[in-house]
């Protein structure tokens, strides 16, 4: 029987994992007694904090997705986290049926960073943080484009990186690296039209593919083939390598200068 390959995560996987391998975890420490304690206390007053810990130099906080705007408003207005460096999502649909959304905040006065994490279900929408941080105008669009996460009350929720008429969301774990069926026909349909599919064929998205009869993109070492020549006419015999005696200097000929003394 052929090996079953899971369809919910088609990304590259480890080729071999030891049976007894247990992945270690980065060291986590409690927030108590740290610099972030005051910010966490203020955050706990306004929203429900599910978990908070310190990992690799910053505090990570998990909150409920409905309270994301409240939590960020508290952090921005009361704790001084004036800049949101980045926001995006992580696809955990295969494991838990959820997306994890992160907001990476920065307090410029204290040079401290907080990562706010929240989890939403597959078809759940999240509230936009554009009123707090204008950078979300772009960042939330990218999140929508890459994961298909709908952001409520975003002023202009449209694809940003992929074309407007694209189908599928490329950073989902179900989306293969080479692109899907739609992606392989996208440019053919766009440039030539659907009726040319048979003539042109799907786009080859395998980066390692080498066609030895392709005389336009590949040269063949040892075989002199004119550019764009008809593959039918390509001569299979090897072209003998000819060296010009003027260019190739024979160093074995002639008197040698022998260094007898080391400088």
């Amino acid at each position, binding site marked *: 029987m052929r090996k079953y390959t899971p369809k919910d995560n088609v990304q590259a996987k480890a080729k071999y994992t030891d049976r007894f391998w247990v992945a270690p975890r980065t060291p986590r420490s409690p927030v108590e007694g740290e610099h972030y304690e005051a910010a966490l206390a203020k955050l706990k007053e306004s929203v429900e904090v599910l978990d908070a810990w310190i990992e*690799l130099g910053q505090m990570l906080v998990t909150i409920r997705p409905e309270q994301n705007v409240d939590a960020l408003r508290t952090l921005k207005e009361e704790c001084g986290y004036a800049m949101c460096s980045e926001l995006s999502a992580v696809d955990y649909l295969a494991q838990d049926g959820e997306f994890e959304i992160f907001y990476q905040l920065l307090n410029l006065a204290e040079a401290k960073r907080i990562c706010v994490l929240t989890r939403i279900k597959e078809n759940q929408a999240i509230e936009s943080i554009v009123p707090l941080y204008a950078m979300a105008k772009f*960042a939330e669009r990218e999140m929508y484009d890459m994961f298909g996460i709908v952001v409520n009350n975003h002023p202009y929720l449209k694809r940003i990186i992929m074309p407007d008429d694209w189908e599928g969301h490329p950073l989902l774990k179900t989306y293969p*690296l080479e692109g899907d069926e739609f992606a392989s026909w996208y440019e053919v349909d766009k440039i030539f039209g659907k009726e040319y599919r048979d003539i042109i064929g799907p786009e080859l998205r395998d980066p390692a593919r080498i066609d030895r009869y392709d005389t336009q993109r590949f040269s063949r070492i040892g075989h002199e083939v004119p550019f764009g020549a008809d593959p039918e006419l390509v001569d299979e015999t090897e072209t003998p390598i000819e060296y010009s005696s003027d260019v190739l200097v024979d160093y074995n000929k002639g008197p040698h200068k022998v260094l007898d003394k080391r400088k």
Partner: protein
Amino acid sequence: MQQQPNKLRPFFENLEFERDDNTMVINFGPQHPSAHGQLRLVLELDGEQVVKAYPDIGYLHRGIEKMAENMIYNEFLPTTDRMDYIASTSNNYAFAHAVERLIGLEVPRRAQVIRTMLLELNRIISHLFFLATHALDVGAMSIFLYAFREREYAMDLMEDYCGARLTHSAVRIGGVPLDLPEGWLSDLTTFIDKLPEQIKLYEDLLTENRIWRMRLEDVGIVTPEQALEWGCTGVMLRGSGIEYDVRKEEPYELYGELDFDIPVSDRCDSYGRYRLYMEEMKQSVRILRQLIGMYSKTDSQLMAHAPQYISAPKEEIMTQNYALMQHFVLVTQGMRPPKGTVYAPTESPKGELGFWIRSEGEPYAYRLKARAPSFFHTGILQDILPGTYIPDVVTIIGSTNIVFGEVDR
């Protein structure tokens, strides 16, 4: 005249003149020489004044974050070159730094010195490129030639070190692959001795130049509030009077030990930002001078010793069986960092470049998000362009110093 688009005759939005409000929509790009890459800026114009601006990006999208999920960590490192291709070592470093923080690795001192040197050299290369293209956009042709001449010397230094001029991959996770070649430090000394004279030449040509000042002063105003809420970093932030430099505030590598200043301008306009770029180049020269002295005091180790994550040195691999086995596993399967989340910010020439990595203990990153400064500097265009005039649009795009490899990833 109403257009009737069909398959043979598509809808030309730039022909739509006859509108009730008498505004015209033009496409600035994606093939525009001063759009600094593939930026399509849809501008709604009232006469020559911009009423509405809509930056459309994605023309250089290569799915770098997707590739990161399908490559082992070492395999992905050369891909980061293609983000900010003007200063690629800063990307290599930002990625290596994030992974090192994730696995808790201490980098040997000589590697730190070399990395910091390369980062500052890349900053100079990037700033010279900025100056050249920005001046060319605004109309100063000779500056372009002078700045590119000096940039060539800096790129020669990069070439002498790693063999590449643009896509360096000069940093590895855990250190650097090579020691400095013979005579490199004296070449670097020659370069940084000459550079201040050149910077003075540029400043003499531009700083008090009447045309240059007319084109740059009070153009592209970014208020401090806008800069903060748009996530502007680097010169865009410091040009608005907010002093924040990751090198000073959250020091990495040797920046904690080095003596340098962070120039800040509260002019909030393109002219202030131009002055900052010039100042930063002088500071980079200062940093490089200190690093040359530091180099001789280090011992020769270049890669961290962590056999679980980093291959052992060649001598060990060739002589010891277990080191060879570990090396084989690391090359074929890749290292497995611990489970966890890391965000490691660095100050790239363009601003704060950081990699947010979620690791699930696999040899492939479960999610890698590249926080690219230019992405947000492109976004802010939609807020700062309305109200300006067409010639200023070119100045403002040049002044944001965006690179599209980084915006689209």
